[in-house]
């Protein structure tokens, strides 16, 4: 397989950046997910790696070879399109055979490779059908087969599951991840779905407004978001973020809430400074002796747990995960605590995370 390196790669349309200069190194066999809201530049980045889009600056290296200005066909990468891009006028067999026929491979080799790949994806029964008559999941399996059959150096996938319904998406997610591990295939995967990104990626590249916000493992981006955007974007719901003011080892939060700083944070901020306190719903616990309080605004039953919406004051609603057995009447005042190691702090001016010192 292959390593992919991006060096100061950028894309401009006129004066507007679609992707601001970005550096990224993708290791052999790694599954990288480009994650971000629509229009953040993730698909453009992927298309630049594939060669379908030209760069306006920087270098792309594939296995240490500069491929920046090579045509897509000269890069030895496969691309799986969001809407499959199957050839509608030929059947599934010929669709899968297309990349091999285009290379003028011998019929025996083509037959052999197709046999392997359809067994891998369990689509033997579809070979004589036309793409038009297939379900979304089957179309995506055929598109994967077409990408796999040529044994490329790397796979690029542009929201391959975006057009599928929720159930199928989960099945296909596991299938793709399992295939990728089995083949040890270097893969760059684009999605706007943070759950998909968390579930599949070895590392996640979070992008927004043409800029990379954070690169890290799913655990890193989840527990240690680099900035407010990542904190809000990852997780459903995202991290609770409440603005307050620091003084004397305590952060003053709305509604007369006083949050004493956990160990290690006191030196990270200065007196009188505005800070944003962040915590995940599951790191807050309802506790009659809790230091924080608020009014129950709504409760959602999620089966194994209750999600409480608690209004601390004004419109500062935070989400807490509570046990499913206890009932919390709307309007009730409750007290809660934040798991000390799980509290995070951000600078509201530059939106960056503060570091423990």
């Amino acid at each position: 397989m292959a390593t992919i390196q991006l060096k100061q790669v950028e894309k401009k349309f006129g004066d507007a950046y679609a992707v601001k200069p970005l550096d990224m190194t993708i290791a052999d066999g790694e599954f990288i997910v480009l994650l971000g809201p629509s229009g953040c530049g993730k698909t453009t980045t992927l298309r630049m790696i594939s060669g379908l889009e030209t760069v306006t600056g920087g270098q792309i290296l594939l296995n240490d070879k500069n491929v920046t200005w090579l045509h897509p066909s000269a890069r030895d990468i496969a691309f799986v399109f969001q809407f499959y891009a199957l050839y509608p006028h030929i059947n599934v067999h010929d669709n899968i055979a297309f990349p091999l026929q285009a290379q003028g491979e011998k019929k025996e080799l083509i037959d052999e490779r197709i046999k392997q790949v359809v067994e891998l994806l369990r689509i033997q029964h579809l070979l004589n059908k036309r793409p038009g008559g297939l379900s979304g999941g089957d179309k995506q399996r055929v598109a994967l087969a077409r990408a796999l059959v040529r044994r490329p150096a790397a796979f690029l996938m542009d929201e391959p599951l975006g057009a599928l319904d929720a159930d199928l998406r989960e099945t296909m997610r596991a299938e793709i991840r399992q295939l990728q591990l089995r083949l040890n295939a270097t893969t760059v995967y684009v999605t706007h779905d943070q759950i998909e990104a968390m579930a599949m990626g070895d590392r996640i590249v979070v992008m927004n407004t043409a800029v990379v916000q954070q690169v890290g493992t799913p655990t890193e981006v989840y527990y240690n978001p680099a900035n407010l955007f990542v904190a809000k974007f990852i997780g459903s719901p995202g991290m609770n973020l409440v603005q307050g003011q620091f003084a004397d080892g305590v952060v003053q939060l709305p509604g007369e809430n006083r949050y004493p700083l956990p160990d290690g944070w006191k030196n990270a901020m200065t007196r009188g400074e505005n800070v944003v306190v962040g915590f995940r719903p599951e790191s807050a616990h309802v506790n009659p002796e809790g230091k924080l309080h608020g009014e129950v605004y709504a409760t959602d039953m999620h089966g194994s747990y209750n999600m409480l919406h608690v209004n601390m004051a004004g419109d500062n609603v935070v989400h807490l995960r509570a046990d499913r057995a206890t009932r919390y009447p709307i309007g009730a005042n409750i007290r809660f605590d934040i798991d000390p190691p799980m509290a995070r702090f951000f600078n509201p001016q530059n939106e960056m995370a503060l570091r423990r010192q």
Partner: protein
Amino acid sequence: MATATVESSVTKSRVQPQSAQRQLSDRAIMNLFIWPTLLLLIAFNFFPLFYSLYLSFTNYRATATTAPVWLGIENYANILTSPDLWQAFTTSGKYVLFSVALQTIIGFALAMLVRGKFRGSGLITTLILIPMMLSPVVVGLFWKLMYNPNFGYFNYLIGMGQEGSLDMIASRMFNQPVPNLALAAVILVDVWMWSPFVMLLVLSGLNAIPDYLYEAAAIDRASSWFQFWHITLPQVKPLLLIAVLFRTIEALKSFDLVMGMTGGGPGNQTELVAVYLYRVAFLGQFRSGYASALAYIILIIVIAISNLYIRNLNRAKGA
């Protein structure tokens, strides 16, 4: 539908008591629209169609004062055994084959050329389409002038400028008769005139091919040549077949262009079936019964060929 009917009957029952006389029923309005059209169709389409079918079995002459006499299938038998007819069909066959084949290739090539958007592509496309918009008789007469061996510039352009060396219309070169030269001259003009039509249909087919297919093909490492044969051509095929079907039917019936240029000559070298039919029906003998039978034979052949195409087209589409 159901609601519309209910509403209209409600309106009617409310309105009728006051002005029953002035209201036309829906049915009357329907009849007023349909019958004039139907009568025109019957008078000018159905009647001639069936009357000519009847005449094709008689010895009727439009110039004679005697009533038609029933001959049975004699006209058909005579036509099908007449060498003149087979000669005309051979000429038509060559004409259809070469002009449709050339139009298809040139039309396709033109469509590929103007496909991409470039400066002035709209203007160039419009210019290319002009021949198609002209009247065939006018085109024929103009080209006759252009082919003129003494002052036409066609000879000059192909480097046969010296006087009398080439006469396309008379099918002669260096004063020697060259067979098929006049036919080639007519085919050339037909190709000039109708390649744009093929281009137009192919162009709309090309524009309907989604870009992602070419992106997928680029990723699949297909060369431009491979992309053309495996994506462009199959995707355009249904529209291309329609263009070929139209052109074949038109070429089989081709009449006005030939009449404008050669009148079927020299001799009968450019006498296509329609021109032959015209000669039998309206020149000299006015053998209307015989000509009707001939017209029916041509009609059946055109229908048969069209059906072959349409079957092929449906296969290409249903695929």
